[in-house]
C-alpha cells in the first residue's frame, strides 16, 4: 500500500521582473519561505526535486539541482532537476510524491524556478519554442503562441467559439489577480483592451498571452501520517497524475482538445475517488487564453466545444459553480515557466487553508491543478483536499 502524501509548507516569490534577483536569490527566497511556513529546520529535509525549463538559455546555467541544494544551504542531500517545459515543477511534485510514497524519503522540498527577463525578446521566443518540436515546427517559423493560435483557429471553426469569449479568460484572470499580492499584474482589463492589443499570432493578441516573468515556488511534502507533527492544516495530495502526447501539435488528429489532459484528469479523478462535481475550484493552464477554454472542456467542467460558453456564463468566476484560476492564472499572476506548476499548487493550498483573502472560494474542500508542457505533450493533474479520505 503506497503512503498518502501531504503538503505542510509553501513559499513563493512575487512573480514579475526581478532586476535585483537571479536564479539563486529566487530559489533561496521561495525555499526559505516554505521551510518557515512548515516550521521545519534544514536538517529535516532529505531530498530536493526542482523544476526548470530552460535555465540554460535564459541564464546560461544548467545543473540547477545543485544550485537548489547549494543556495538553500542543504548540501550534501541529493537533488533532482525535472524538465517538462511549462510543466516542469508539476513533474517535480509528482516525482517528489513518488519519493515519499516509496518509503525512501520522509521530507522532500519540491519546487521550480525560471529567470526569463535577463534575455531580450527574440531569444525568449526561441527558448520557449524548445517546448515544441524544434526540427519540425519551430524550424519552419512556427512560434509557441503560434501553436496555440492554430488550436484557437480550429476551435473557433469547429465550435463557433468567439473571439470575445476567448478574451474573457484574460479579463477574468486579471480581475482575480487584483486580490493576489504575488501576481505580476494588478490591473483590470476589458474585452475591448484584449481585442485592441497588438496581434502576436492571429487570432491571438498580446493580452491573450501569459507574460515573460521571473519567479520561484516551493512546497514541503511529507507522509500524511506525519503531517500533523508540522501543522494543524495539512493539505492532502489525493491524486497525482501525468500523461503524454505527441511532441508536435500537428501530428494529432484533433487539435481542439489536449488528449493528455483527458487521460491525466480521468486517472486523477479515479485516484481521488472524485468526480468533477467534487472539485470546488481549479487552477488551469492558461498559457494562452484559448487553453483555458480547451482545458475546462478536457477536465470535464464543460462539454467539448462549450468552454467558451462556460466562460461567458460567469460560472468560472469566484462565486460561480467552478471558479477557475482564482490566483490570476498564468495570464495575470505571471508565468515563469519552471515555477508555474508549483505556484498553481500554492494557490490550491492557500484556498484549502482558507488563506486566500479577497479571492477566497467559500467552503473550498477540494481543488485541482492542471499544468501543461508545450502544446499538451506533457500534462500533470493533481487533486488536493483538506480531508485525508
Amino acid at each position, binding site marked *: 500500500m503506497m503512503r498518502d502524501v501531504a503538503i505542510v509548507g509553501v513559499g513563493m516569490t512575487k512573480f514579475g521582473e526581478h532586476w535585483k534577483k537571479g536564479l539563486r536569490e529566487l530559489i533561496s527566497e521561495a525555499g526559505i519561505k516554505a521551510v518557515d511556513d512548515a516550521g521545519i529546520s534544514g536538517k529535516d529535509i532529505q531530498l530536493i526535486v526542482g523544476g526548470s525549463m530552460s535555465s540554460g538559455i535564459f541564464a546560461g546555467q544548467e545543473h540547477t539541482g545543485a544550485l537548489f541544494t547549494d543556495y538553500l544551504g542543504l548540501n550534501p542531500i541529493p537533488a533532482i532537476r525535472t524538465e517538462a517545459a511549462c510543466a516542469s515543477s508539476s513533474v517535480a511534485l509528482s516525482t517528489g510524491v513518488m519519493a515519499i510514497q516509496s518509503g525512501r524519503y520522509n521530507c522532500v522540498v519540491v519546487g521550480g524556478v525560471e529567470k526569463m527577463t535577463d534575455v531580450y525578446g527574440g531569444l525568449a521566443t526561441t527558448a520557449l519554442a524548445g517546448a515544441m518540436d524544434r526540427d519540425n515546427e519551430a524550424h519552419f517559423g512556427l512560434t509557441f503562441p503560434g501553436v496555440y493560435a492554430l488550436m484557437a483557429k480550429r476551435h473557433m471553426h469547429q465550435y463557433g467559439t468567439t473571439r470575445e469569449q476567448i478574451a474573457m479568460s484574460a479579463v477574468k484572470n486579471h480581475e482575480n489577480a487584483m486580490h493576489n499580492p504575488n501576481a505580476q499584474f494588478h490591473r483590470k482589463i476589458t474585452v475591448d483592451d484584449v481585442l485592441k492589443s497588438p496581434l502576436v499570432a492571429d487570432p491571438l493578441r498580446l493580452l491573450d498571452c501569459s507574460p515573460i516573468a521571473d519567479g520561484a515556488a516551493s512546497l514541503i511534502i511529507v507522509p500524511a501520517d506525519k503531517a500533523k507533527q508540522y501543522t494543524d492544516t495539512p493539505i492532502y495530495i489525493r491524486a497525482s497524475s501525468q500523461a503524454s502526447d505527441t511532441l508536435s*501539435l500537428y501530428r494529432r488528429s484533433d487539435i481542439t482538445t489536449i488528449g493528455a489532459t483527458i487521460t491525466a484528469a480521468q486517472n486523477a479523478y479515479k485516484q481521488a475517488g472524485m468526480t468533477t462535481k467534487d472539485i470546488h475550484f481549479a487552477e488551469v493552464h492558461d498559457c494562452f487564453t484559448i487553453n483555458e477554454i480547451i482545458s475546462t472542456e478536457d477536465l470535464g467542467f464543460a462539454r467539448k466545444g462549450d468552454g467558451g460558453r462556460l466562460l461567458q456564463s460567469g460560472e468560472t468566476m469566484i462565486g460561480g459553480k467552478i471558479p477557475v484560476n482564482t490566483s490570476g492564472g498564468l495570464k495575470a499572476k505571471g508565468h515563469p515557466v519552471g515555477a508555474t506548476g508549483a505556484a498553481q499548487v500554492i494557490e490550491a493550498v492557500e484556498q484549502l487553508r482558507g488563506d486566500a483573502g479577497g479571492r477566497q472560494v467559500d467552503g473550498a474542500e477540494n481543488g485541482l491543478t492542471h499544468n501543461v508542457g508545450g502544446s499538451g505533450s506533457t500534462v500533470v493533474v493533481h487533486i488536493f483536499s483538506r480531508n485525508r479520505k
Partner: protein
Amino acid sequence: MPTEKAVAHHWRRFSERYGLIGSRCTSCKHYFYPTSIICPKCRRKGKIEEFKFSGKGNIFSYTTIRIAPEGFEKYTPYVVAIVELEEGAMVVSQVVDCSPDDVSIGMPVESTFRKIREEGKSGLILYGFKFRPLK
C-alpha cells in the same frame, strides 16, 4: 549566445525537407512526417518504408505570425499552417505566394521548394518545403 548548429545538424534533414520525404507503415497504411521508425499502432509488427509525399493537401489550421523567433524577423507577417496532405499525414510549414487574408481552412495547396532562413550572417542558408495555393 550562439544558436548556430554544426552543418551535420541540418544536413541529416536535407532529403526529408527538400523532397518532403517521410515514411509509411505498410501494415496499417499510416503515414508519418517526419519518418518514424516505430508505428505506434502496429509496434514491432509494423513495416515502415520511406515515402515521398505528393505535396498536395488542404489547410487544416493556420496563423499569421507577427512576433517572430530569431532568424524570421524580416519575414513577418507570415502564415504558418498545418496542412493535411492527400495521403493523410499532417505537416507544418509556411504558406506563401498569397496574402494572409486569402488563406482559409480547407484551402487546397501544393508544396514548393523555398528558402526557410539564414542561420546567422556567416551560417548556413536553410531550404525546405513551403506551401502555395493550388493553381
